[in-house]
């Protein structure tokens, strides 16, 4: 399994897209941090970038890469190795390299220019989001038949989590504005890792606003250690569930 992961890693390191992704992230974070002087504002801009770029690029790139290495995977499977192992190894290589890209692109500038707790949490959310959307890409890969459809599905999934889900949530909030739906909303947010990551981060940065009247519930729930642990645990579930589902489907898939 390690050998396969190493192969995938080496292949991804040679891949120009990952290098460009790292470079763009690095340029963005260095310029933002030096422009705004490591303030909360720079962190917020970086948060926006993380919440938009990481899901979209990770899902698209990972799906395309998985489809491109389909022949490599098929070749491996003709050897006496378990399907599960091959798939997990490929996933590990992917998630690891994208996480490294994020840490190198955003994490290093952050640690050098604005070393503080919110920076660490931003890095954590970025890495977890990379892992989550690699796993979702893997699920898309095993569920779809051909590359075109796969990429289409990846785009829809990425858009869903970054934009559509929030739109639906907003509609729901409007529709039920006369009812006490606050708790239900927190429960619903668990279904979107991007929202979870955002709230985790906002509690560090914009606490002033969140502590206004509506934020009482933020503070009571997500502001406490128990809430943060809940959010972090949900994020980990978001890695595991697509991954396990993907493995399960892949085991019986007709290649």
């Amino acid at each position, binding site marked *: 399994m390690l050998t396969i992961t190493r192969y995938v890693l080496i292949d991804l390191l040679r891949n120009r897209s990952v290098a460009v992704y790292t470079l763009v992230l690095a340029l963005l974070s260095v310029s933002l941090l030096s422009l705004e002087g490591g303030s909360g504002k720079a962190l917020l801009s970086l948060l926006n970038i993380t919440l938009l770029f990481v899901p979209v690029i990770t899902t698209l790139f990972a799906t395309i890469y998985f489809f491109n290495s389909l022949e490599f995977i098929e070749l491996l499977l003709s050897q006496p190795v378990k399907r599960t192992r091959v798939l997990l190894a490929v996933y590990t290589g992917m998630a690891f390299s994208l996480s490294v890209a994020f840490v190198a692109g955003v994490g290093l500038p952050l640690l050098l220019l604005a070393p503080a707790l919110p920076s660490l949490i931003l890095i954590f959310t970025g890495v977890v989001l990379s892992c989550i959307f690699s796993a979702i890409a893997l699920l898309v890969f095993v569920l779809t038949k051909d590359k075109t459809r796969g990429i289409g599905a990846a785009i829809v999934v990425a858009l869903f989590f970054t934009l559509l889900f929030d739109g639906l949530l907003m509609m729901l909030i409007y529709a039920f504005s006369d009812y006490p739906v606050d708790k239900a909303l927190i429960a619903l947010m668990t279904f979107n890792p991007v929202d979870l990551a955002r709230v985790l981060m906002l509690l560090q940065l914009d606490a002033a*606003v969140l502590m206004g009247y509506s934020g009482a519930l933020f503070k009571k729930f997500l502001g406490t250690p128990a809430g943060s642990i809940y959010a972090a645990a949900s994020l980990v579930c978001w890695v595991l569930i697509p991954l396990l589902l993907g493995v399960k489907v892949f085991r019986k898939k007709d290649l």
Partner: protein
Amino acid sequence: MLIRTIACCLLFTTAASATVIRTGPSAPLQDVLDRAQPGDTIILAPGLYRQHDIVIRKSLTLIGDNYPVLDGENKYQLLTVTANGTVIAGITLQHTGRSSLTDMAGIRLQQVSQAQVRNCRFINTTYAVYLQNSTHCTVSGNQISAAAGDELQSGNGIHAWKCSHLQIRDNTISGHRDGIYFEFVTASGVHHNLSSNNIRYGLHFMFSHNDVYSHNTFRANGAGVAVMYTRGVVMYKNNFYHNWGDAAYGMLLKDITDSRIILNRFHKNTIGIFMDGTSRIDIAGNEFQANGWAMRVQANCDNNKIRMNNFLGNSFDVATNGTLMLNSYTFNYWDKYDGYDLDRDGNGDVPYHPVSVYAVLSERIPATMLLYRSFLTNIMDQAEKMVPAIIPDQLRDNMPRTRKWNL
């Protein structure tokens, strides 16, 4: 001891034809005070005085030598002053009682004028200094601290009722219900005080016209500063810092008219200034930094001028609860402004709308706060900038500064 007393007596008698009496913890202070002649100076030797409900009925000067301690044993009141021109200085007053019938005070000034309370220390007093129907009094340089538990059981640091011409300066107040409380207090000055960590308000006044507040710092109070039903207030160079919580304000203005709020700093408050029913206020040269809402201006405010302020790094610059707009915003610096200045006169050429679409949405339905700073809301903000549909279009700064004011 004796020699010193005599020497003092000689000195003071020649100067002011008054005697200096020195007394200690064992002598009953009330008797000493009753025997003294108006104009005498009484010096309290260091020590613990377990004496309470002492009334000063003559114009005396009561000075503590190295902070003698008057202790109310958590049951009684300490000093009550009913004579004009009394001076109390350098005494520690501690542990007054707590009662629902009377407001137990460390020092109570009752219908006097020209009285002074200087450089005293108040430790765990329900009310530290209580001024009642008094004029021309000074409360300065005192250190007032308590550890009040809740609003109902506690009193105020400096409490003034129906007074005029007071000077409250250089005091440090913490741990009371309200740091400084004024009701029907007019023509007074509050300067250079530090009011922090009080349960409710750092400063609270009602019906107190024509007062001046300057160079005070209000920090980390339960609900900030609240001022109500008053006209002719001048507030300048005060700091409102870190008043943070569900219902906390830097400053809450309720029915304030014809006042000026100038050169203050509002840092890290949940709401910098909350305005409700205020009219004809000049808000100029203030700095709002890192607040949740820099200002919330309710629609029932009119003819307020908000000009030449700096708005820096606030989550929301201005929020309002309606579409009626009767206030003017001019020449402010908004860090979120992204217009241009082609004629280089220092003012942007396109107006700035300080109310963001998200401020409007969260005003209507607080739960939308859940989606704050998501990609969706960023898009909405941008769309609203192109074609304003939700935000109150009338609420705008036609002359936004392109560079920060140097305040």
